């Protein structure tokens, strides 16, 4: 191993450099220039994102603990795009007086979670995986409590840290059982020595439960709504999109690489969990009036749809999970972006406040409508393609009953997504949200999302590219 081989870790290295730069910059900026950090940080992260797209070297480091392949690079790039949009969307919010002194904290915490996620995705060893997942989670709790003067935000932080600690404990317990059977924590060795003995199955179930927490699958979802509601909007969007996407990515990598031997077992588990997640997420979303809670439950249901790509263990499944994650990033961030802009300008977060929004703020309403249609899977926006291919992936392996239940669930989902459209376009209000102009950064963030929502679906080249980087069992 020489110094040059470290270039394999380019994503993490560049992120760490950015992290250090912001840390140092904070120290050397005077009291009056604190606000400039956010501009620097966003530009810096845009560069980091761009660097990620340069042709990358692949290989492994530290005796196989760290692995980089075309797939992991792609996944990291997708997470980078999501994070960049989140940072752009939080730009205006960070300019608030109460946030001025700790702008850098926001970036530092966010970047460190992203570094954690990158290590997690590139892990080739369960310890590395665990380190990554912890690094990705603990700063998130601090982020959730970022509005420290608000009780709800602090509550969200506590809830997140407690539930994630518990889930980590369960996950570790599961891993220890698997270690007990196989005597190794390296993915290839575990995969080779794994057999379908009861202890392995039990260990897998615990591992699954731990990952279920991170992806907020039913019945491990109970923290989601409260945390999403309490945390600042931008942190919520990061949690629901980037954090969830990262968990889905590593989960599918581990399922396909480490657990193919017991695929019959996890097919059953995923079958049940997928239906529960989609259905219960949908049913709870039906009655939500707070937009953040509403999006929280809708994102639980969306996580269930990801599982449709997992279940077959096929190449198409992994392709669609990655593809759908990308689409989901654009769609959900567009929705959260609108919620964030409106919350920023008016402080309103309830669905009833959105009545008649189209007549006062047509641009925001159309963005929100596109986001809702994309989340619901209505053509011609990208969500349709993502959902359709997820269903194809599950149907390819013959899970027609699952597909039918999931497809019928999209109708329930359509109902509540249409409620938002109805509020904005159809309902009249005596006191609608007044017409306002968004800032440049808010517009930029939404514009990227809209472009993504419209283009990603039609861009079949993108889908083929992802497919070439994906693999099955």
């Amino acid at each position: 191993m020489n110094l040059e081989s470290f270039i394999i870790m380019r994503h993490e290295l560049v992120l760490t450099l950015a992290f250090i730069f912001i840390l140092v910059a904070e120290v050397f900026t005077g009291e009056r220039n604190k606000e400039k950090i956010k501009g620097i940080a966003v530009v810096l992260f845009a560069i980091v994102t761009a660097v990620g797209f340069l042709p990358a070297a692949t290989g492994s480091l530290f005796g196989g603990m760290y692995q980089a392949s075309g797939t992991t690079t792609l996944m990291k790039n997708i997470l980078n795009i999501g994070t960049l949009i989140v940072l752009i969307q939080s730009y205006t919010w960070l300019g608030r007086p109460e946030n001025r002194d700790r702008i850098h904290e926001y970036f530092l915490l966010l970047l460190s979670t992203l570094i954690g996620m990158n290590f997690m995705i590139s892990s080739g060893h369960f310890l590395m995986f665990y380190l990554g997942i912890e690094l990705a989670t603990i700063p998130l709790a601090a982020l959730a409590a970022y509005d420290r003067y608000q009780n709800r935000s602090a509550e969200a932080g506590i809830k997140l840290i407690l539930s994630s600690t518990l889930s980590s404990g369960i996950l570790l317990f599961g891993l220890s059982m698997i270690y007990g059977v196989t005597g190794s924590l390296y993915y290839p060795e575990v995969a080779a020595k794994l057999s379908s003995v009861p202890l392995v199955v039990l260990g897998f179930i615990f591992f699954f439960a731990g990952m279920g927490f991170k992806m907020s699958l039913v019945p491990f979802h109970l923290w989601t709504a409260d945390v999403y509601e309490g945390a600042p909007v931008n942190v919520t969007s990061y949690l629901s999109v980037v954090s969830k996407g990262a968990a889905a990515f590593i989960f599918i990598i581990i399922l396909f690489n480490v657990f193919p031997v017991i695929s019959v077992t996890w097919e059953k588990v995923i079958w049940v969990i997928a239906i529960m997640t989609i259905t219960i997420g949908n049913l709870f979303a039906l009655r939500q009036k707070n937009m953040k809670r509403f999006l929280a439950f809708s994102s639980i249901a969306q996580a269930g749809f990801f599982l449709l790509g997992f279940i077959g263990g096929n190449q198409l499944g992994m392709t669609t999970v990655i593809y759908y994650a990308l689409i989901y990033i654009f769609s959900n961030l567009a929705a959260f972006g609108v919620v964030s802009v409106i919350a920023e300008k008016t402080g309103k977060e309830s669905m009833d406040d959105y009545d008649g929004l189209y007549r006062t703020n047509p641009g925001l309403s159309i963005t929100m409508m596109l986001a809702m249609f994309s989340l619901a899977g209505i053509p011609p926006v990208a969500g349709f393609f993502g959902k359709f291919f997820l269903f194809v992936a599950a149907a390819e392996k013959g899970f027609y009953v699952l597909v039918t239940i999931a497809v019928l669930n999209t109708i329930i989902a359509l109902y509540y997504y249409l409620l938002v459209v109805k509020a904005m376009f159809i309902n009249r209000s005596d006191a609608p949200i007044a017409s306002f102009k968004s800032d440049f950064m808010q517009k930029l963030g939404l514009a990227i999302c809209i472009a993504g929502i419209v283009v990603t679906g039609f861009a079949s080249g993108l889908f083929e590219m992802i497919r070439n980087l994906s693999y099955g069992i």
Partner: protein
Amino acid sequence: MNILTWLVIIPLLTITGILLVKDARQTKIVSAIGMGIQLIVAFVIVFMYVNLRKSGNTDEMVLMSSFEWFKSLNIYYTVGVDGISVAMIALTSLVVFAGVFASWEMEDLKKEFFISLILLSTGVFGFFISLDLFTMFLFYEVAVIPMYILIGIWGSGPKEYSAMKLTLMLMGGSALLMVGLFGIYFNSAPDGGELTFNILEISKVTIPIEAQRWFFPFTFVGFGVLGALFPLHTWSPDGHSSAPTAVSMLHAGVLMKLGGYGAFRVAMFLMPEAAAEMAWIFIILTTISVVYGAFGAIVQKDLKYINAYSSVSHCGMVLFAVLMMNKTAMTGAVIQMISHGLMTALFFALIGMIYGRTHTRMINEMGGLMKVIPFLGVAYVIAGLASLGLPGLSGFVAEMNIFFGAFEHPETFYRVATIIAVSSIVITAVYILRVVAILLLGPIRDNHFVGLGDAKWYEKLSLVTLITGIVYIGMAPLGLSSLIRESLIPIIDKLL
């Protein structure tokens, strides 16, 4: 570029044009010009098609072109037409054109209205030209979803309820359809080879009968929801009565035909064995649709509800005839789709115009309108007579073919069903004549009605366009029916 693709591009260009112009007047003009061009293109396609056939081209589909889209899943953007689809395209362009003029006086959010309306028509045109199940499905959903906005914003009565009900039921249908399409796709290469969504390719293979038994009901019912198959028709009366005029016209006139068209082009054409096995179930359901819809229309007092129930009855007839699986009945089914499309669009246009003047749609509040608005009155009578199947108008040709063909079926069960369904003709006559009598004849019920003005130029244009179509089909049905008959041959061959 392929001329068929222009059918999708012109509406999109029109939408762009609407976005660029400033005021409501320009919006109307841009929409009218766009849809006028669309009408011309549609008829150019009809002539091109007829000429191709005359020059001896016997391909199953003509004017085809194909672009690779999602390569690894073998999804292509493939377009092509046969006699049935060109007839449907011509119908759609007529109805959309008439619809634009019928909504000339739309007040609120005019731009958005025309954009949604034209977007909806894009979906319909795309559906009829698609030969790839994926693109077909995509266009199908594009055609459904603008309805929610259109009914929700510009509708009347319990519009929010109706809009949600209609959207959810239709999307529920498309959900079932999606499962059906997966089934077809993954069984499209039973002997190995590449899976495909292409209708022509799939029609060459025989999907295993077990798979057909599973997926035929999904596909047929999926399309059937849009074709108002009993008991999944309930969105239709509410939806149509709440929708604004042009939307009712387009929806009852064209969108419901997507159901009938898809039912035989996809469900029956690709899975003929299961279709033959299960036809009896759907024959029962469609017979109920036909008779029940007609009875439903008798008791309604709201003009739009009457027409919506009559649509259930007439569209039920389309599915009924398709399931008879012989040439005469299926020709009748396609003519019925076109005839009903024109006739019901005419009805809804007239109802909208009458409502705009009297501000009521309740028939017992109106009377003697023939004396004050004779043009609209006469047009209403023509629509009514076409609906009850008077010879010389389109309805007669369609129903004649349908019932003649249906009775040709050798089995007693089918003949009994036909006899029951035929009774709807009488019931239709009852509700049509009743409405005409109460609404148009007799003394003027309300003094406010005395000063009403008759149709304006744009209303006349809209009505005359549709009436021309109805009379043309009624007087000279041979052109249309030979257009359809030739194209039915491959489908019939597969079914027998």
